[in-house]
C-alpha cells in the first residue's frame, strides 16, 4: 500500500528537481536533419556552430540502414507578436528567398559552411536536408499550445471521473446521473476556460463584462486560466467526496498517479514533454482505466469468495494484457526509425509498468480496505 505513495512523492521530487523538459513543438526551435555520406565528427561541428551562433546547439546522430542522419537543433528565443510600428516584417523580400527567419537561415548556412570545409566539396548542399522545422516564431501560439495540452489532460480526467462514477457509484441511478452530468458539465466548462478567464480579467480591469478588446496581457490571463483549471479539478474531487464514491475515486486516483509517476520518470530520463508524449499520456489514461475497471468489476461486481482471492484471480488477465501491449510497443520501439514514434513507445512502456504497480497495489489496496470495512 505504501509503495505507490512513495512512488508519487519520488516522482514529484523528480519533477521539481530535474524539471520537465519541453519538446521542440512546445518551445521554439530551429531544427533540421540531413544525410551525411562521410563520417562527420559531430562534436567538432557542435563546437563550431556554438562559437559561430553564440547559442546552444544540440546535435544528434541517427544511424539507420547504413545511412547516417545528423540532426541539428537550436532553441529559438520566443518572439512576442507584433513588431514595433514601422519596423519591417521579419522577412518579406524577393532578394532573400530563404525567408524563414534569420536564425534559421544562419543555422543552415553555418552548417553548410562547415560541411563544405570538412568535405572539401564546393557542390555539397544542405538543401538535401531531410526534414526541417522552425517553430516558435510567435510566443503566444507556442504558449497557447502548452495550455491546451494541459487543458486536454484535465478535461480527459474529468470525463474519466464522470464515466467511472456512473458505472461504479454504489447508490441509486438518480444520484449517479447527477454526479455524472456534474463532472461532464465541468469538463465542458473547462473547454471554455479561456473565455471565462478572459471575462474575469476583463471584469477586474475594465469593470465590464463584454468587451472585444483583445489587447490584454496574455500572461495574466494564462495565470487566471490555470486557476480555472485548478478550481474545476478540485470541484471534481469534491464530487467524489460528496457522493462517498470511494471505489470510483480509487480508479481516478490510480489514473492520476500513473500520469504523475510517468511524468516523474520522464523528468529523470530527460524525455521531453512534446505533443507526441502528451498523446502517449492520454493513451496511458485509457490503458490505466482499462486495467482498473477490470480489477474493480472482478472484485466489486462479482461478490464471491474473499476479496484477496478475487484480486489474485484477476491478475493473470491483467498480466497478459500488459505483456501483449508491451510486446507491441517494443516492436514499435525497435523497428521504427521515427523519433516521435519511439518517444511514444518509451513513454507508454514506462506507463504500463507504473500502471501495474498502481492498479494492483494502490487501487487493489484501497478496494480491499474499503470492502472489508463495508462488511463489518
Amino acid at each position: 500500500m505504501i509503495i505507490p505513495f512513495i512512488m508519487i512523492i519520488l516522482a514529484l521530487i523528480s519533477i521539481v528537481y530535474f524539471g520537465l523538459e519541453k519538446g521542440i513543438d512546445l518551445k521554439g526551435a530551429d531544427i533540421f536533419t540531413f544525410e551525411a555520406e562521410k563520417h562527420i565528427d559531430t562534436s567538432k561541428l557542435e563546437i563550431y556552430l556554438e562559437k559561430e551562433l553564440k547559442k546552444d546547439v544540440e546535435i544528434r546522430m541517427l544511424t539507420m540502414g547504413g545511412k547516417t542522419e545528423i540532426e541539428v537543433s537550436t532553441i529559438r528565443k520566443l518572439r512576442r507578436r507584433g513588431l514595433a510600428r514601422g519596423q519591417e516584417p521579419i522577412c518579406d523580400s524577393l532578394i532573400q528567398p530563404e525567408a524563414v527567419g534569420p536564425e534559421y537561415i544562419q543555422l543552415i548556412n553555418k552548417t553548410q559552411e562547415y560541411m563544405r570545409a570538412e568535405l572539401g566539396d564546393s557542390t555539397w548542399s544542405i538543401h538535401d536536408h531531410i526534414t526541417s522545422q522552425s517553430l516558435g516564431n510567435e510566443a503566444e501560439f507556442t504558449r497557447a499550445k502548452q495550455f491546451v495540452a494541459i487543458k486536454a489532460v484535465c478535461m480527459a480526467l474529468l470525463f474519466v471521473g464522470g464515466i467511472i462514477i456512473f458505472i461504479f457509484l454504489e447508490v441509486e441511478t438518480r444520484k449517479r446521473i447527477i454526479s455524472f452530468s456534474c463532472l461532464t458539465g465541468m469538463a465542458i466548462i473547462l473547454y471554455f476556460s479561456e473565455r471565462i478567464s478572459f471575462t474575469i480579467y476583463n471584469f477586474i480591469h475594465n469593470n465590464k463584462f463584454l468587451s472585444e478588446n483583445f489587447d490584454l496581457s496574455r500572461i495574466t490571463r494564462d495565470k487566471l486560466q490555470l486557476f480555472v483549471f485548478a478550481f474545476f479539478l478540485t470541484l471534481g474531487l469534491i464530487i467524489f467526496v460528496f457522493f462517498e464514491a470511494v471505489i470510483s475515486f480509487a480508479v481516478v486516483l490510480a489514473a492520476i498517479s500513473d500520469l504523475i509517476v510517468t511524468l516523474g520518470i520522464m523528468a529523470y530520463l530527460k524525455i521531453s514533454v512534446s505533443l507526441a508524449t502528451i498523446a502517449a499520456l492520454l493513451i496511458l489514461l485509457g490503458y490505466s482505466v482499462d486495467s482498473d475497471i477490470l480489477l474493480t468489476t472482478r472484485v466489486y461486481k462479482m461478490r464471491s469468495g474473499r476479496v484477496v482471492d478475487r484480486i489474485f484471480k484477476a491478475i493473470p488477465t491483467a498480466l497478459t494484457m500488459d505483456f501483449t501491449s508491451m510486446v507491441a510497443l517494443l516492436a514499435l520501439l525497435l523497428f521504427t526509425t521515427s523519433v516521435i514514434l519511439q518517444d511514444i513507445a518509451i513513454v507508454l512502456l514506462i506507463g504500463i509498468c507504473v500502471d501495474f504497480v498502481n492498479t494492483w497495489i494502490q487501487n487493489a489496496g484501497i478496494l480491499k480496505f474499503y470492502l472489508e470495512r463495508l462488511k463489518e
Partner: protein
Amino acid sequence: MKKLFEIIFSTRMCILGFCLFAAITSLILKGLYWGRDIEGGRQIKLSAVDPVEQTQFELNMEANKIIRKRLDFLGMADAKTNVRNYGIGCYYLEVSIPVNIPEGQVTNLTEMQGQLEAKIKDTVIFTEVVRVFTDPEKSGIGRRDDGIFEWHFAVEISPEAAERFKRVTLDLKPIQVGRETYLEEPLVLYIDKKNVSSLLISADMRGKAITIPRVTGGANTYEEAKNEMERMQAILDSGKLPMRIQIMENKQTTPRLGAAFKLNILFAGTFAILGVGAVVLLRYRNLKIMFAIIFTTLCEIILILGFASLIKWQLDLAALAGIIAVIGTGVDSQIIMTDLILVRKTKETEEEETMPTLVSRIKTAFLVIMAAALTTVLAMGTIIIHQELVDLRGFAITTAVGVLIGYFITRPAYVHIIETLA
C-alpha cells in the same frame, strides 16, 4: 467444419464481413493517403504581424482566399489552406503543400503582402491589374546577348490607369539609349514598397493609352527566371493580402524518407502482431484462440485503414501511432473477454454460482470494455475539438475511430467466435 459454418453464418460475422468488404474495396479503389511527415511536403503556419489586425476573422479568411489563389496559379491545387484559431480572437493560417517545394518559392508567396504600385517619377499609375497573361504569346523567357535570362509577361490594366499613363508620358522627353529611343523616366513596379521591376518605356508609346503593358525582369539562370516570373504572376494575379504576414511555424520533410518508413512500419506492425500472438499462445496454450485474436486485430487494422481512405484522411506519423494504440487496447479487451468467457471451462463451482449464465458474463465484459472505450473516445474528443492541437488530430481520429470500430463491429464478432470455439 460444422463449427466453422456456425462461426461464419451469423449476423455479427456478416456485419464484420460486409464492413471488411467495404474497407478493402475502398483501399483498392482509392488507396491510402499519406501525410506530410511520411510522403514529404511542407506545412506553414502564418499569422498577421500586427496584433490588432489579427483579431479579425474576416481578414484571415480573405488572406486565405488570396493565398489559395496564388497556390492555384502555380499549379499547387493539392495544397490545403485553413484558417484556425488559438485563444480568443487569435487566428492563423495553415498552408499544407503535399509536394516538396523550394523554400523561397512558397515562403515568398505566402509572406509577401503583394501590395503593388506602378509609378512613373512620383505619380502612381496603377495599383492593381485586371488580368495577368500567362499564354506563351504574351509571356516568356528569352536569353539576352549578355547571357542574362530575361522574362516578360503582359498584364491588363484598367482604362483609367491607361489614361493616367497617357497624361504622364506626354510630359516626358525621349532620350537615346543605344539604338533605341526611350522616355527619360522608367515605369517602376513596387511590390511591398520594394523596387522589383524597372521598365524603360519606348518612345513611340509616349502619349498613348496603353492598357496592356509588359512586365519584365532578368535572372542569371533559366530556372531562376522561370521561378521569378511565376512568382510575380501569381502575386500580381491574386492581389494584395489584407495584412502583413509572418511565419509562425515552418515544417518540411523530403519524400525520400517515405518508402523506407512505410517498410519500417510494416515490419513493426508484423512483429507486434506476431509478438502479441506469442504471448496469447503462451497464456492460453490454444492455437484457435490465438488465431481468433490475430484475425480480429487484423480486421480492426483493415477497417481503420479503410475508413481513413474512405474519408480521405491523411495518415501521418501520429495517426500510425494511434493505430498501434488501438491494437494495444483492442487486444486488451479481447483478453478480458476471453478470460470471462472461458471461466465456464474452469472447474470451480464457486464461480459458476456467482456468474450463472454466459450472457451475464459477456455483459460484464462489455461493461468493462464500454467504460474503457468511452474514456478513450472522450479523451480523444478533447484533442479533436482543440484547434491548437491540430498536429495531433490524426492520432486522435484514428484512435477514436479504432476504438468505436472495435466496440461496435469487431468485438461482437470476436465474442461470437470465442463462444462457438469454447
